């Protein structure tokens, strides 16, 4: 009798104009482990990853309550899912849900589910409202940033920092504003979407860099990849990137990871003015949406993450070669309204065939051509 496959649950499945990391994590996992069972945990029946029939295809998907509803509804929903699925590990891929999953670590452990997540303290220190203070306390360069509880303090902060400046939401989104009118409009939108506080941040002109890695919880980095953003969307997301090897950036990230004793995946974003230092913009407590890029270069961090947790082993991954680059390439995936209906009404969706069966279908098609 075959042993049951290892089952990994992944969130963040939408790969729209602001792609979430889940699909890239799944692709990376399937590159190394073809027989994994991958469960999607979804917040919306229109998340594009639910309909993918490619390498990031799911074997099943379950809906989750929105992170803002808190821990009890999430726990209740997971309990229902555990009645149908034996999940070995959950890899949360969205900033807004991480704290809920951290709070549930003891419960998940009881249910035999592994995670690799930072502590509440690390999460708090890197949170957008606290990050500037954390940087100042530890002499990590960062843009001048003010945390504002309301529109009045935001206006005061803008006067002090001078226009143009960035206004950022608690979890996501940042917009460059050039005037009080723009500031009021952006602040209203962000407050409606994410709630307070808001951040006012000095606008720095420079090149943008991202650094992703896995912290081992004892202050060390297991593996990493750093890139310069080559194309940036209106919302500041990297749409193309090129691998770099900057010893100064490496040393700065090592110091930050050590200070936070970071456990699990992370992405740090920096801006570097011409002839200036790298300034830390944010720390995301998850893999980035471009994580399958280093995986394709042999530095498969999602696969390393599950090996660390499920096998207690750490394989040394190669460094990515400077000059390798990625460009994001949007495609259309085909779905059926029946699948959307199933997800919208029952909150459960099962693939008609597993990923390995799908590969067989492709091969057969090739043969008959």
């Amino acid at each position: 009798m075959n042993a049951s496959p290892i089952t990994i649950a992944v969130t963040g499945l939408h790969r729209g104009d602001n792609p979430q990391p889940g699909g890239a994590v799944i692709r990376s996992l399937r590159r190394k482990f073809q027989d994994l069972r991958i469960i999607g945990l979804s917040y919306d029946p229109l998340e594009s990853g639910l309909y993918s029939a490619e390498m990031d295809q799911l074997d099943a998907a379950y809906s989750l309550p929105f992170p803002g509803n808190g821990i009890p509804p999430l726990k209740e929903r997971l309990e229902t899912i555990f009645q149908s699925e034996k999940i070995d590990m959950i890899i949360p891929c969205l900033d807004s849900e991480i704290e809920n999953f951290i709070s549930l670590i003891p419960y998940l452990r009881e249910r035999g589910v592994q995670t690799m997540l930072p502590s509440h303290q690390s999460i708090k220190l890197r949170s957008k409202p606290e990050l500037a203070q954390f940087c100042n306390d530890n002499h990590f360069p960062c843009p001048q940033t003010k945390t504002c509880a309301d529109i009045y303090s935001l206006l005061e902060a803008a006067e002090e920092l001078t226009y143009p400046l960035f206004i950022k939401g608690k979890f996501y989104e940042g917009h460059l504003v050039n005037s009080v009118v723009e500031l009021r409009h952006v602040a209203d939108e962000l407050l409606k979407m994410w709630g307070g506080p808001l951040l006012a941040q000095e606008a720095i002109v420079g090149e943008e860099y991202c650094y992703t890695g896995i912290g081992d919880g004892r202050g060390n980095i297991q593996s990493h990849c750093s890139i310069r953003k080559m194309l940036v969307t209106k919302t500041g997301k990297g749409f193309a990137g090129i691998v770099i090897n900057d010893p100064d950036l490496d040393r700065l990230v090592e110091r930050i990871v050590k200070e936070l004793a970071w456990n699990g995946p992370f992405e740090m974003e920096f801006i570097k003015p011409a002839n200036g230092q790298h300034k830390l913009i944010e720390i995301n407590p998850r893999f980035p949406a471009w994580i399958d890029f280093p995986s394709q270069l042999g530095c498969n961090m999602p696969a390393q993450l599950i090996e660390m947790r499920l096998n207690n082993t750490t394989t040394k991954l190669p460094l990515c070669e400077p000059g390798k680059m990625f460009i994001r390439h949007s495609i259309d995936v085909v779905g059926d309204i029946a699948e959307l209906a199933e997800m919208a009404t029952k909150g459960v969706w099962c693939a008609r065939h597993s990923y390995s069966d799908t590969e067989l279908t492709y091969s057969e098609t090739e043969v008959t051509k």
Partner: protein
Amino acid sequence: MGKKIDIRQARNILYPRLRFYNDQFVFDTVTGSFFRLSPIAGSILKSFANGESETSLVAKIQKQYGVDRATIMRDLELFINSLLANGLKENSEGR
């Protein structure tokens, strides 16, 4: 006035980090920046970064383009200066 450029020091910074793709395209592995160069600039930078001595490089340009030594020295300094200003900045490893 900017600080005086030490050409030897600049070479030590450039040599390990630049990658050339034919004579007209250079990639800086540290900053991730890349530049398209004119054939003359590309050839000079490549020779310079690959360790050709200042004297030999100046003599070569002098012979090829018939320009006086002082002008070549000045142009070379300006060229290196503009590279540094474009992000090919020394990192602490090279200090």
